[in-house]
């Protein structure tokens, strides 16, 4: 039993942190609010050269073959820095789906490009309903003409406006989980993207409509009607990954709050002297350290294929979602007026955490998932 990171892992984290501290400054983050692409091509290239984009892909496809623990460590740093980038869309979602369920030809075709940064991918799975089961997927894919024809709408598709390819979850049969995954070229005829604006201005997204979009047979990822188990696995991984980013945002908020409490004086003493503030800070640490345990236990369980991996993913997403909102929110309170301003960075962390809170299942959803495991144990 060893809950500490290995020296290689620590080295990786330090490199990422140094890089992001240097490049992903508050000024840079803010400059991306109104940037049309919403990320820096130069940084994207450097991240690819550092191996981060292919981190979890097989070595055969130019990746580093690392696991979820390392991925979560990188994501935690990205959350700390509120990095604006299609990393989650391209690597954590689409790339992982292909690495998991794609055939050799598909892996050869896509993973190298995603890893080298030449190809940006994304994932479309949410539609009108904000529920997370297969029943919410109704975009229609009908077979015909040596392939499939897609009709329907995907919402909240991250960085769709810059993506070259999207993995799209579509309904291919009326069976409840009759879902199939397709790799859709975003330049196909009939694909239209309309940007939406998130509260977190660095997490760009779009609505993508599909009108008689033809997708060739060889673009089916995995089996026809066999997409749901793949998506379910992916959503578990995405839940852990999102929790890692939220952890980064809340740890950074906590650190800023503790620093501030040491220097900001009222009534003749630093506010950190007052128990109302000190206890708030202590509660933040409890939430952050508990979140750390949840994120890295779940990450390890994913990587090791532990029997409780899915439960741990739900625990992490449910717990860290609530914890990060509380920590980032209390940080604003602790800073007083300045915490409420646009100029001060706290809201960046708060909004990044908030962006992920409903994604891949909110706390209510994951508590329900957790309870189902408990019920199964007592049947």
């Amino acid at each position, binding site marked *: *039993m060893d*809950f500490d990171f290995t020296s290689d892992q620590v080295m990786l984290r330090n490199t990422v942190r140094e890089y992001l501290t240097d490049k992903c400054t508050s000024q840079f983050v803010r400059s991306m609010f109104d940037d049309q692409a919403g990320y820096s091509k130069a940084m994207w290239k450097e991240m690819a050269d550092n191996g981060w984009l292919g981190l979890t892909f097989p070595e055969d496809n130019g990746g580093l073959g690392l696991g979820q623990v390392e991925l979560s460590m990188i994501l935690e740093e990205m959350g700390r820095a509120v990095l604006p980038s299609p990393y989650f869309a391209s690597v954590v979602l689409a790339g992982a789906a292909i690495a998991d369920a794609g055939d050799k030809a598909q892996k050869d075709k896509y993973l190298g490009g995603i890893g080298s940064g030449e190809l940006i991918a994304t994932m479309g799975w949410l539609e009108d309903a904000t529920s997370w089961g297969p029943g919410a997927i109704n975009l229609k894919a009908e077979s015909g003409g040596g392939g499939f024809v897609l009709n329907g709408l995907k919402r909240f598709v991250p960085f769709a406006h810059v993506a070259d390819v999207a993995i799209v979850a579509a309904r291919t049969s009326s069976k409840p989980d009759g879902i199939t995954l397709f790799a859709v070229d975003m330049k196909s005829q009939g694909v239209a993207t309309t940007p939406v604006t998130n509260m977190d201005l660095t997490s760009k997204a779009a609505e993508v409509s599909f009108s008689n979009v033809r997708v060739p047979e060889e673009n089916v990822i995995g089996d026809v009607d066999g997409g749901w188990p793949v998506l379910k696995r992916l959503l578990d991984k995405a839940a852990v990954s999102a929790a890692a980013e939220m952890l980064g945002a809340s740890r950074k908020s906590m650190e800023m709050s503790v620093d501030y409490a040491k220097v900001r004086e009222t009534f003749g003493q630093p506010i950190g002297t007052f128990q109302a503030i*000190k206890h708030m800070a202590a509660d933040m640490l409890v939430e952050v350290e508990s979140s750390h345990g949840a994120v890295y236990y779940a990450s390890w369980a994913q990587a090791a294929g532990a029997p409780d991996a899915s439960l741990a993913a739900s625990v992490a997403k449910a*717990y860290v979602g609530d914890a990060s909102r509380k920590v980032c929110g209390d940080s604003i309170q602790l800073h007083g007026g300045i915490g409420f301003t646009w100029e001060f960075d706290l809201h960046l962390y708060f909004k990044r955490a908030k962006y992920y809170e409903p994604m891949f299942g909110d706390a209510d959803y994951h508590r329900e998932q957790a309870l189902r495991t408990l019920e199964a144990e007592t049947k």
Partner: protein
Amino acid sequence: MDLSFTQEDIAFRARVRKWFEENLPKDELKSLDERVAWHRKLYAAGYVGMGWPKEYGGQDARPMEQAIVQDEMARVNAPSTVNGLGLSIVGPTIIHHGTPEQKSRFLRKIMNAEEIWCQLFSEPNAGSDLAALKCRADDKGDHWEINGQKVWTSGGFIADWGILLARTDQNVPKHQGISFFLINMRQPGIDVRPLKQITGGSEFCEVFFTKSRVEKDHLIGKLNQGWQIAQTTLGFERGAGTLNRVTTYLMSLRRLVDVCRSLKVNGHTAIEDAAVRQKIGRAYVELEVMRYAGLRILSRLEKGQRPGPESSIAKLYYSEYDKRYHHWVMEILGPYGNLLEGTPAAYAEETGSGASGRHGVWGVDFLQSFGPTIYAGSSQIQKNIIGERVLGLPKEVRTDRIEIAKQKGG
């Protein structure tokens, strides 16, 4: 990072599980004698004082092995050892600070529960501010004479011996005049009066000393160094206790799910009710997080590191969880939660194991949950410690510190 149990741990767990299956008492242990007999049986099997060095009758066991034994005990709801305080606090204190004579006089008898121990620290006016204690020990040449009062002494009425903090110098700042003694509770001049608790039971007592006697060689460490020794004593945190706490709650949660399958709310069973499901789901999620934190502490202990801030964080987390969890249970049970007797078996808590065999009531555990946020450093004190010692926030202005500074300045 590797959070799997080793093959060695897995094999050890299997052995322990088998032992408990074969040896768990069939009937509830009623008398102290029966509890002592169970303790000795556990000791003979090597499951008591496992972490102590071999020379004092221990096993030199790894923290993980201790945790596994406790975890397996929780799984079958086995009665605990009878001398908990002696084993977790008194023994380690004597091993660290005791003389060779004290070690040979006391340690074996703690181990086999021949002598049961209690902790005589708190006083009516010295709880969180423990160093304000007034109970005094005066040097009478061949012995120490104790006069004063202690309170909230858990297990005081069954104890043969106690660890006592008493003032040995009245003329120095409060932390500097305290000494740490071992006191025989079976002597004239000690009056132990059980106090009735919020639960209706009486586990703690008040203790009055009138010209009571402590032998000269029963001082631990140096004179007036009691405060420092008490600090290390209080630091013998039960890292190994984390898994068993989680398993105890898990058993309780599983029982709650069962109860909710028959309990009715709003015309359906409670388990079908969305609000109920959210409460149980939250309790389970927070419990799993506690398990990961426990594993993190164990991973530290396994490497021979003392848990740092994790132990304050863990104490705060589990004691506050205890309250939250039982509050949710009470909300789910409605009026059934209030019943001390007459709960239908289907809605009762199953503290029933072979060992206790009774259907418990949830209300008692609910009331009991008000204890942990008060004892062993209240939640407020834990937050002060985390704020000041872990996060480095400035110390609050305290008049007793100003007094000490004045005294030092002359």
